[in-house]
Structure formats: structure tokens, C-alpha cells
């Protein structure tokens, strides 16, 4: 049997040093993505990482592959278009909670029910980091931020529960303090056929002084350690998705099996659209014209 040589981790590192604050959770996510790519032996030319705007959305610039650092909230849409154009690419979306669960929420929900084969990693720090500390859609109730000086009065979005009702076929949660564990979740998400969400607790050490590394370290436990937990069972996934407080689960919540969008799109039967010939053959053109006669 031929042995496949594993790519060194540097293969997946760009020449740009991340400019995140020292200790930012996003370092863990970048590392986990590199490890996942290495584990799956992905060729850098076939990886396409799309982000929006935010500290977390700077990630594609630090990863060696193709990508677009797009608009705030639009990463999922840009990635969806790229995937439809070339479904031979491994399309990964990276971004923040503000980006994906706020301004881009609409695309997020529709992408899940659409079930394109995309992997979405949300660096959920429960704050707007880049814009220096306003409340985000996942900021806890009562949390005092720049924009909620008397404490946040809005209830946070529950991304895992939302993903479950929206039809995502792979739903996991990672923690930047557990990069290896997260790398496995991301690798499985990329390998999964269909839309996968990996929501990540990625602490903002500068602007969220509540949901810190120690805060999470005290609380998180791995679903895999709960021997009775079955990620094929949507009902128990629901129950788990609402577990929040002294104990917070990370790991794989749910994995289902549905036909992907690209597999259901007839025009893609002949392979990626980008490799199909342009233009109209004469007889096809003529038969189209005949429809008007």
C-alpha cells in the first residue's frame, strides 16, 4: 500500500503573521483549521476559505489557500456562489458571531436548509471584537458592554438550536482551549457531505472579560465523554443545545444525512460548472430559437 506523505503544518500557513491580540481565541481556530487540513491531506489549491469582516474574519489571510475576505455578513453567500461554480473546492467559511449570527443571519439559516457542502466555523466570542466591544447577538443577558452600559437586555441567539431547526446536517461546538478536539470537529465537518456548523468558543481577551478562557475551562465538557449520547438523535441534541450554566457541552451535537444541494442540481451532473464549456452549440441554439416560433 502506498503511503501518503503528510504535509507539514507550515504548508497551510501563509506568510502573514496573525495580528490578533496575544491570547485571542482565534489563534486556536487557525491552528485547528491547519491541523484539520493536514489530517485530511487537502491540497492548498483546492481549499477556498471565505470570511466576512471582523477580527475573526481576518483568518483567511493567515491561512495558505485560496479565499475571499468578503463583506460583513456576506461570507456564506459568497461561499455558496463559489461552491456552485466549482464544487470540486473544499469551501470553508470563517467569521464571527456578529458576522454570522447578526448581519448575516439570513444567509446562515438559508444555507443550512439548502444543505450545500460548506463548512462554517464561527468564532463566537459573544462580542463585536473588531469594533472594540459592542454587544453581539450571542452576548449574554445582563452583560455590560460598550453598547449596553447597563447590561444587555436582549436574549442571546442559540446557534446550535437554530442550526438544528434550520436543517444543518452537521452541528458541533468547539473551544479554542481545546485546539486538537476542535481540529477533529472541523476535519469531520469538512469531510461531511452537507452543511456543517462548527460554533467555537473563541474568547476575546480584550473586550469580553466575562466569557474568558478560565470561565469556559471550568464549564465545558465533551459530549463524546457522555457514553450515552447519540448525535444521530435530534431530540437529545435539542436538549443538549439548551444546556448552559455550570456545565456546557462541546463536541458533536448532531449529524444527519441528507442529499446535498449540489447533488440535487441537474446542471452539475456533468461536473463542476467551472469546467463545463462556455457558449451554445449551434443545434442547441437553434432548438432554443424554435421555442419562439
Amino acid at each position: 500500500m502506498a503511503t501518503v506523505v503528510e504535509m507539514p503544518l507550515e504548508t497551510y500557513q501563509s506568510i502573514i503573521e496573525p495580528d490578533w491580540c496575544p491570547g485571542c481565541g482565534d489563534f486556536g481556530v487557525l491552528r485547528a483549521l491547519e491541523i484539520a487540513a493536514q489530517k485530511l491531506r487537502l491540497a492548498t489549491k483546492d481549499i477556498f476559505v471565505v470570511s466576512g469582516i471582523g477580527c475573526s474574519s481576518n483568518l483567511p489571510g493567515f491561512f495558505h489557500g485560496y479565499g475571499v475576505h468578503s463583506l460583513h455578513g456576506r461570507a456564506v453567500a459568497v461561499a455558496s456562489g463559489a461552491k456552485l461554480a466549482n464544487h470540486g473546492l473544499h469551501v470553508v467559511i470563517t467569521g464571527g458571531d456578529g458576522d454570522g449570527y447578526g448581519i448575516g443571519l439570513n444567509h446562515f439559516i438559508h444555507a443550512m436548509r439548502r444543505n450545500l457542502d460548506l463548512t462554517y466555523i464561527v468564532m463566537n466570542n459573544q462580542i463585536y471584537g473588531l469594533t472594540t466591544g459592542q454587544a453581539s447577538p450571542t452576548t449574554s443577558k445582563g452583560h455590560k458592554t460598550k453598547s449596553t452600559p447597563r447590561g444587555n437586555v436582549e436574549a442571546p441567539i442559540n446557534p446550535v438550536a437554530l442550526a438544528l431547526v434550520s436543517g444543518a446536517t452537521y452541528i458541533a461546538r468547539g473551544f479554542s482551549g481545546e485546539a486538537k478536539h476542535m481540529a477533529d470537529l472541523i476535519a469531520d465537518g469538512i469531510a461531511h457531505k452537507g452543511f456543517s456548523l462548527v460554533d467555537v468558543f473563541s474568547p476575546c481577551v480584550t473586550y469580553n472579560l466575562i466569557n474568558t478562557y478560565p470561565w469556559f475551562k471550568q464549564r465545558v465538557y465533551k459530549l463524546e465523554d457522555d457514553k450515552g449520547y447519540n448525535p444521530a438523535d435530534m431530540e437529545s441534541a435539542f436538549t443538549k443545545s439548551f444546556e448552559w450554566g455550570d456545565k456546557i457541552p462541546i463536541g458533536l451535537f448532531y449529524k444527519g444525512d441528507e442529499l446535498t444541494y449540489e447533488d440535487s442540481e441537474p446542471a452539475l451532473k456533468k461536473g463542476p460548472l467551472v469546467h463545463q464549456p462556455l457558449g451554445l452549440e449551434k443545434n442547441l441554439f437553434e432548438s432554443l430559437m424554435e421555442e419562439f416560433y
Partner: protein
Amino acid sequence: MASHGERCGVVVKQCEDELAVVNMAIGAGHAGVRAMCATSGGGFALMTEGVGMAGMIEAPVVIVEVQREGPSTGIPTKTGQGDLNQVYGASQGDFPRVIIAPTDTADCYWTAVESFNLAEKYQLPVMIISDLLLSEHPETIEPDDLRHDVPIERGEMVADWPGGNGPYKRYACTPTGVSPRALPGTAGAEYVSPTDEHDEEGIVISDVFTTPPMRRKIMEKRMKKMDGVLKELKPPQLEGPLDAPVTLIGWGATLGVIRESRALLAARGIQTNHLHIKYIHPFHAAEVTAILRKCKKLIGVEGNYTAQFARFLRAETGIGVHDTILKYDGEPFEPAIIAAEVERLLAGRPLNLDVSVEDAREMAYHYIRTHLADAARPTEVELADGNSHGEPLWHVQVVDRSSGVSRGQLKIGVRTGSIYAWEPVAAAAQA
């Protein structure tokens, strides 16, 4: 189109909103397919940030904006030309883009071909500004006006990037401003396209170190592409005798109706010529200026309230039109309307915006539909002095639709169009 997708190798995707639409199209264009999307004014408003992204990351995309009557939801069932300002002004900052206003049905076909070629060769968004009439009216055209063997020009592409080449520069500064494009999946040419300002390699220069000279050169590189685009576009030409006393200036889908109005006018002994603009941006400023300097009375004809194109023309050429013929009631221009307006302008008669007898009758029908359960119809219409209303009134008699018995009269302000009163015939009198 969706039903032809499989046969023609086209993926048609209906999305959740126009934000998704344009961003998906840009993602697809960036990944290497020919991508286009279409919308009307409100949807285009949602797309504007994406238009700028396509300009910035140099992704080819074609966006069709079919104008209806705004503002806001406006008259979404009717046509107009009121979105020029919006399309021209779409998105923040300066970036290269093309705006084309096709002139008739066959021209739409060729405009699409040209738009894709420009979008790919110059790696930029191309906006096709059409209108509801052009986009939705049925018309018979000659089959030979359309051909299958259209030119397909994809511009400079990089097929592979061997190791010894040094880093691939997606945004290489070149004399033309066009940087040869490597599609995602090309071995050795990995890059990330950011909407933040970036250097030749796509590395952002937008944060602590913004590097002003680099920003300047990369801006110039992008904008330089417009010179190449302009050279490819056919300059507009004056139709009709150069020495005609009147020049009609139109843009987009009014080409045919302006031509027909000129024939009507010629039959009445009024000579005109006609300058019609298809390429809005980049604009043939030098050519248009040279033509218009030789013309006499310039009359702008367009389907909006503020003469958006006339303003644009003034900005591009320094030449203002002498008069305008404007329409914003949702209905398309008709040759007779344009011809009558030209005659009015030549006679020096002022514009009359009063409610006409026909208008009063139309407004009465609206009142009858909405307030009288559509069970009546207007009959005689008389002008009255209006007394306390401070303007003359139309008195419109309204009778029962089936029996013809009088139901009452409507009083409509001739100047303001206000429906001042509905005076029903007393029930006793009716019985």
C-alpha cells in the same frame, strides 16, 4: 431560464434576498464561471455593497437592473427610467465598473454578450440598466438578429504557476491595470482576495500600516482599466441631419419611440436629429461633447422627474440641455407624446401640468373603484370656478353603471388633482 439549465449548462439559483443574490453571483464569478443576476430598484439597493466588493476584489459579475417606477416600492408594475442615479452611485468609493443601457430587444442579447466579455476581460462588475417595458414586452424580431457563435473573451488567465515563478500576484500592477487572473484551484497560485485595500499579492494594507503610496498605485491600477474599457465601446452617433433645429437626447430603451416621434415631427415639417446613449459608464465625453457643440436646441427625453440623465450629461460634458421632456406616470413614452411636447417647446408654450378632462375621468374611475364598489361610471365633466378651493374644479357626474341613474358628482382640483368632494345624490332623489 431555470427550465433550460441542465441543457445549457446553467445553474439558476433563487435566493433568500438580493444580498445573497449578488454575493453569490460574485462568489461564482470569482470562482471562474460567468455569473449574472437581475433585479429591480429595491433589490439593487440591497446589492450596492456587493457591487463595490466586485470592483475591489476584481471579480467579474453582470448585474441587470430593471427600472420600474420608484420611489420606494413605487409602481412596481410599470416602467420608468428613474434609477440612473442609484446605479451610477452604487457603493462607496471609486472603483471600476461599466454601466450599459440596452436600447431594444435584440440589443439586450448582444449587450449580455458584451457585458460578460467586459466583465471578464477587465475583471469588474458590469451593470445593465434596463426598464420594465424593455424587459417584459413581447416583440417580434428577426431570427438573424441573434446568433449562436457569439464572441467569448475571458481576458488574461493564468493556467498554472510553477514553483520558480515567485509568488503569484493576483493584483499585479500592470500598464493596463489588468492583472492576469488565476482561478481558485490553480496549482501554486494561492491567494486571498480582500475587500480591504491590499497590495499586489492581496495582502491587506488597511490596518495600522496603510502604506499610502501603495494604496495610491493600487487605486490607479484598478481605475486604469476604465481606459481600456472605453476604447472598446462604440461611441454614439448622431442620427438625422446635423443642422436640424432640434436635437433629441435619449438613453436606453427609448431609442425606438424617439425615432418614431422624429418621423411624426418630420411629417409635420419639423426637422430633428437624435443622439442616443447606450454606454453610460465609461462615458464617451469627448465624442458626445463634439457632437452636441454642433447641435442647436437640445431636448432631453427621459422617464423620470428630475432629468437624471441630463444632469449626468452636464457633469460629463459641461453641456446642459435647453429643455426636457419627462414622464413619470408609469406609462411608457409614445411617439405622439414626444412629438407634441417638441411642438409645444418650439412654440414657447409653458408646460401645463393641470388635470385634463381625460385625467379627471381616469381619477373618477379610481374613486369609483375604491369608494363606490366599481358600480358606477363617470359621464359629463364640466369646468367650474371652484370658489373657496382657490383653484378651478372639474365637476364629474357619476351615474350607476347598470341603470344610468345619477349617483352624484365628484369635485376634482384642476391644479392640485385633489379630490375635494364626493356629493351623492340624496337617497330620496335617487328613489
